[in-house]
């Protein structure tokens, strides 16, 4: 470890943070424009050509706004909560590789910040730290709406973290490693979304709940809780909470792209390594658009149904998916026939179909009982 390596890390960390922060700013613009187009509007187009200066205008506005602290708030925690929320959102993607190793002018450059052998575990642990900021923000505001928003958020995150973790497990099992680089390299021939479509769907649903996006945006349900946990926040502190939310969206899309959609893998990456970051960027954009699209389409679901869905449907289904994945891998290894791997998607889809049929039966039973 030389000073040079430390400098390389610092530069990579700085660049990646800047990418995340710039990405956050333009994600807000992207979301507003996309939502506007879906609703037959145009969206912000006044600041600069096509509105590209809108994030800067927003930032300036938020910085110059007055910052209010409620008189009865817990001042220290009120100040710390946005920071606790934003830091995990920024550091969670440190283990995501955004390209194969490059050789530039005889210097070997790895396109990731940290290569931890338990990368997925790191992601899980950091993701669960993020909820502290939200629940502390809600509690320290000394406001009942903020408190309830924070409580809902923590309950929701704990519930959906199980399904999320189990969907990670199916990717780990398929790759045989918790290193993000190994997971990406295993997807060179086939993406895990094809081998484990149900696991990918569980991941996508659980991440929507993890980052509090519609239709699972319970913690900030406007009609019930005004603005949820950030009711009392204004100015730059509010901007930090907002930034955490959108940075988490980018982070979770990057993780999803890496675990299930082949990461930086794509055609010609072996020959031209610089294509890697472009591929992962495109995949992240598509996943982000999916989130915005879902937000524009589905209404928010009721809180008790959200919890029931998390515990009674997603958790058993993801346990079944992990079991099926493990069985499929063992069968393929035992009979040394990799075609047996295709048991996994078939059996998973059958399991998902069974679950949907059970939900349908239950709903119809309730409907009958009501009449």
């Amino acid at each position, binding site marked *: 470890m030389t000073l040079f390596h430390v400098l390389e890390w610092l530069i990579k960390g700085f660049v990646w943070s800047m990418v995340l922060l710039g990405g956050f700013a333009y994600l807000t613009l992207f979301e507003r424009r*996309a939502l*506007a*187009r*879906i*609703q*037959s*509007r*145009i969206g912000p187009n006044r600041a600069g050509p096509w509105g590209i200066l809108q994030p800067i205008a927003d930032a300036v506005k938020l910085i110059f706004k007055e910052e209010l602290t409620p008189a009865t708030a817990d001042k220290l925690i009120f100040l710390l909560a946005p920071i606790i929320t934003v830091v995990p959102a920024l550091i969670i993607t440190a283990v995501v590789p955004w390209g194969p190793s490059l050789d530039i002018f005889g210097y070997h450059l790895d396109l990731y910040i940290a290569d931890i052998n338990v990368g997925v575990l790191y992601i899980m642990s950091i993701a669960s730290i993020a909820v502290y900021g939200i629940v502390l923000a809600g509690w320290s505001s000394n406001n009942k709406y903020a408190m309830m928003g924070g409580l809902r958020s923590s309950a929701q995150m704990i519930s959906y973290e199980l399904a999320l973790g189990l969907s990670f497990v199916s990717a780990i099992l398929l790759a045989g490693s918790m290193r993000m680089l190994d997971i990406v390299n295993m997807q060179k021939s086939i993406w895990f979304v094809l081998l484990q479509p149900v696991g990918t769907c569980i991941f996508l649903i659980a991440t929507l709940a993890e980052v509090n996006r519609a239709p699972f945006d319970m913690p900030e349900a406007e009609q019930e809780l005004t603005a949820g946990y950030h009711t009392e926040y204004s100015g730059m502190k509010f901007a930090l909470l907002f930034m955490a939310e959108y940075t988490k969206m980018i982070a979770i899309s990057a993780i999803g792209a890496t675990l299930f959609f082949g990461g930086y893998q794509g055609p010609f990456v072996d020959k031209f390594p610089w294509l890697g970051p472009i591929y992962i960027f495109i995949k992240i954009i598509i996943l982000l658009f999916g989130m915005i*699209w*879902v937000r*524009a*389409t*589905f209404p928010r679901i009721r809180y008790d149904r959200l919890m029931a869905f998390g515990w009674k449907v997603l958790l058993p289904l993801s346990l079944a998916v992990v079991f099926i994945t493990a069985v499929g891998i063992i069968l393929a290894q035992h009979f040394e026939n990799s075609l047996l791997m295709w048991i996994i998607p078939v059996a998973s889809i059958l399991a998902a*179909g069974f679950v*949907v*049929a059970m939900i*349908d039966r239950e709903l119809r039973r309730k409907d009958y009982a009501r009449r």
Partner: protein
Amino acid sequence: MRVVEPFVQMARGLWTTLRMMFDKPVTVQYPEQKKPVKPRFRGRHVLKRYENGLEKCIGCALCAAACPADAIFVESSENTDEIRYSPGERYASTYEINMLRCIYCGFCEDACPTEAIVLGDQYELSFTDRRQAIYPKEMLIESILADGQPTPQKTKPGEFTRSVPAMKDPQD
């Protein structure tokens, strides 16, 4: 088939929103693009003139009496043949409308015996000071028509003795 049904419906919802993305936006880009107002639109008031340039307003203050918001203030003075602003005996020497009080109900229009006050199509009213919201007569009165003379005019005696002209019923 019932297992597939919820997914089909979800996909149908997603397809609807995606299709709407390629719809033409309904937004009117306001300062650059202005939609014409409807014929009976009630915008800012205009004080009309006759073709010869004389003001229609005779300072009777019926509009001020009809105004439910008490937004109009009229003060009248005597016309003479030497200094004539409007037909008949009197004219409005002061005519002020407080645009912050006005509710654009159009009662002043209905009350006016000479059709002098009309709610026009001007709707871009903004001020930075509430004193600017009081529009004096100079801002409300119509500019002089092509073959008209500016007021006050010097007229022949006995020509404009009648203050309310003979009129037809309003059309729209």
